[in-house]
């Protein structure tokens, strides 16, 4: 596979390390009343869609960017690649 890195252009996927669903950005509030339940869902439950999937890849053999890649899990087609930091900020990570 080839991932079109937003800063570096197309790179072989073998340069990257895969983590999983980009929902891992949405780490819950540790002080929430139902933090245990929220962290359970965050840590363990996945949509696991057959289709478009936003997922985290890390450019380990490259510039060490974490990326959010939108990839179809049935065709492997990649439709969008973003810097995870931008996504995280856009999703309102406040620290």
């Amino acid at each position: 596979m080839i991932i079109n890195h937003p800063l570096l252009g197309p790179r072989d996927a073998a340069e990257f390390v895969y983590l999983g669903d980009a929902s891992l950005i949405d780490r819950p509030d540790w002080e929430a009343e139902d933090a245990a339940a929220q962290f359970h869902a965050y840590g363990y439950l996945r949509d696991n869609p057959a289709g478009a999937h936003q997922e985290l890849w890390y450019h380990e053999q490259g510039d060490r960017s974490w990326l959010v890649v939108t990839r179809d899990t049935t065709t492997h087609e990649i439709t969008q690649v973003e810097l995870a930091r931008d996504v995280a900020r856009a999703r309102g990570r406040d620290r």
Partner: protein
Amino acid sequence: MSQTHRIGDGQVDRSREISFRFNDRWMKGHPGDTLASALLANGKKLVGRSFKYHRPRGVFTCGSEEPNALVQLRTGAHQEPNTRATTVELFEGLSATSQNHRGSLEWDLMAVTDLMSPFLSAGFYYKTFMWPRAFWEKLYEPVIRSSAGLGRLSMQEDPDHYDKGFLHCDLLVIGAGPSGLMAALVAARSGARVILADEDFAPGGRLNAETLELGGMAGADWAARVVAELADMPNVRVMPRTTVYGAYDHGVYGALERCTDHLAESGGKPRQILWRIYSKRAVLAAGATERPIAFGNNDRPGVMMAGAVRAYVNRFGVTPGHHVAVFTNNDDGWRTAKDLAGKGVEVVAVIDSRDKPAVCEVPGARHVRGAAVMDTVGRKGVKAITLTDGQVIPVDCLAVSGGWNPNVHLTCHQRGRPEWRDDLQAFVPGGALPPGMAVAGAANGQMTLAAALAEGQAQAKAQLEALGHTVANVDVPEAEDEPREAAAFWHVKESKKRAWVDQQNDVTVKDVKLANREGFRSVELLKRYTTLGMATDQGKTSNIAGLAILAEEAGKTIPEVGTTIFRPPYTPVPMGALAGRARGKDFRPYRLTPSHNWAEENGATFVEVGNWLRAQWFARDGEKGWRDSVDREVEMTRNSVGICDVTTLGKIDIQGKDAAEFLNKVYCNGFATLAVGKVRYGLMLREDGIAYDDGTTARMGENHFVMTTTTANAVVVFRRLEFARQCLWPNLDVHLISTTDGWAQFAVAGPNSRKLLQKVVDKEHDLSNEAFPFMACGEVTVCGGMPARLFRISFSGELAYEIAVPARYGNSMMDVLMEAGREFDAVPYGTEALGVMRIEKGHAAGNELNGQTTAHNLGMGRMVSQKKECIGNVLSQRPEMLREDAVKLMGLKPVNPAEPLIAGMHFINRNASANMDNDQGWMTSVAYSPSLGHSIGLGFIKSGDTRKGEILRAVSPVHGREVLVEVVSAHFIDPEGERLRA
């Protein structure tokens, strides 16, 4: 016997002779021959035995689809099993042997299985060999295994080497037949970067095998001219002997180039190169494969594909027989008759299953209309054929054509699903092709020359335009649309004898019918039950016939039955090529520590630690075994001073005004309050609350920290920190650099370590206990001004430091330290002594931090802060992870000090029996403690912290060993930590 069947030149060079050997017989061929064409030229019909019934078999095709003519090529460690004689280029001294027979090829003892065939129908083995049970492994299976398989591995290491490479192009053209050449020509003249790959050594595809003309010249000549033009262009890479074997995601293709297989010796060059081709677009022009018709005894040597017969005649100047009959269900079969007759070969008959007039004039041949071949005669080579009308015709070769299947293989490697075309009676590419791929020519169902050329041009044009190229105008040479009508005709129903569908795996029409009757009606079930299409040819000649017969039996149409899809590789790829240079010592790179040379010069024994090579111990003269060396290293370190290269520990530089806050989030214990110039032990959890990694982090400045990780986790901890930094807390002002390779770091441990370092560290730095106490850190200079970092930390439990210098000075630093330590009898110590000392001190390491244990298990539960946000603290509080009776890390010592312990022992209560239900935990790490004079261990024990003094059984049933152990504190040495602070 000489080349009795050589009748002309074709494209071989008859001015030169090549000697080769098949079994015990030396024969002659010419440059340009394949092993198959040379065998045929020498009149060699019988070349192998089939898989199951050991039937005599001869050359069947002239390409990579060959099911029968498989040989073992070369000898000794170069022996290469299951090699298709039809694709082997002849070279001087070539040696090949036939395979899969007991006794000689001619008199195979295993041929007895053929007589037992009524009892060996499809899937018979699922129904028997069950009694008595023990007989399966002891008797039945060994017999089956030894008679199964085909060729033999030499069982020696492959002596050749292989390479890998990466190529990039605008357009990849797969196949150098007419449409592929046309496509490549258009793209090349348009200035695109083109790769043209073809599995044959002579590009041209069927043009080399046919007598068709292009633009007024012989097809082969046209092909040669185009290839010559392409080869001269700087934007084109022509790759003969290169099979594109797989279509992978995003335009990546796998290709295998055979570099020296056509030579007697590789001459030091790589035997093959595995290419990964990154293409923007691709044109698949893989042509078509002819398929046989099933009839009685259709597997005898001399029964061949019609297209192959004329290829041997036209391209190689070899006729497979002197009295040839043609059996066809389509117009194309007639070309064989015509070409053979044109070359003076006697064509005795053309049997056309269709009741229609002759397609062309074939001098001397009988035309039998609307008939079929029902049976053949001749044990080791066909002697005569019997027709459905009862005629018996003596022949020594029967050319069979059942029509042509487009080579759709690569179109299926992703999501393509071939579609049936009634007019062709064949599957053509369908469904979603691999993105960027277009198909041209016969592979796309364009079965005539003119159409193939036109489509090659059109597809290249379309692909290039999509890429934004201006496409050059290239005229399509004039060519004919040869007749190509075909009828559906798969097998001869009148045949009473066994009729082969899959020749290599010995699957017959009856087997297919039986599978259908027994309920194996899906194509996939048919394939799995009968093994149809699962031989080394992957059913290239057999799948469609099998499908057609299944459809017929089930009363369905072929598209209703469907087709199996093709998966990579298109043709088999050697394991050696797939592995390339990553084998032996080069399997993975070595990482060497900065003092590696010093260690090597000083007698170190090395050990693999991940990719690192570390000194394990430094043996001295007179020491009888590794224990002697390790005991000495420990004792001398604990009594004076020892030095160990600990560079392999991960080092991460953390800077920024939010660095402290960041550390507070990634460690479960607090770091916000760490003073500048101080070091703190940190425990990192995974988000699931399990202990992940530990190490020390030093605050070098207000906004500057240096973290160490374990050797094993250096890479993954860094990855995780970047995740935390970029994804979880993207607004923190903090930056990370991995400096593991930047700094050489040495542990200097033992009561004399301060004195030693005082000689090395420049005098202005006060190393006294008051000025530089336990857990102090700072930037210093050594050797008169060289920058260094000094940490007063201890893994050994002794007064100890770690000193870091820029990595390039690491080897010299080791010299300096040892020289300075000479007066103290300083010793270098390796990983074994390091391990012994950490067990004596009760520090957890990889065996304890194994990804399954919690801080609670490790006795560090109270370190997990619940007063701050940090990774892992929420999920670490789940009830099952905080159980009272959870295992706790404890020390163990044998009740009888003479008894050694074994890591991996399980603990059982003294009066309980040894079984899973009574399992109390396990021993994680064990060492002989030279300090205590007996074996000691660390282990996890249920409620271990409440069981000090208890005696348990430590059992190792796998060793048949049992030791009584006492539960003690894990801190065997200096439990109060006085030495650390000395």
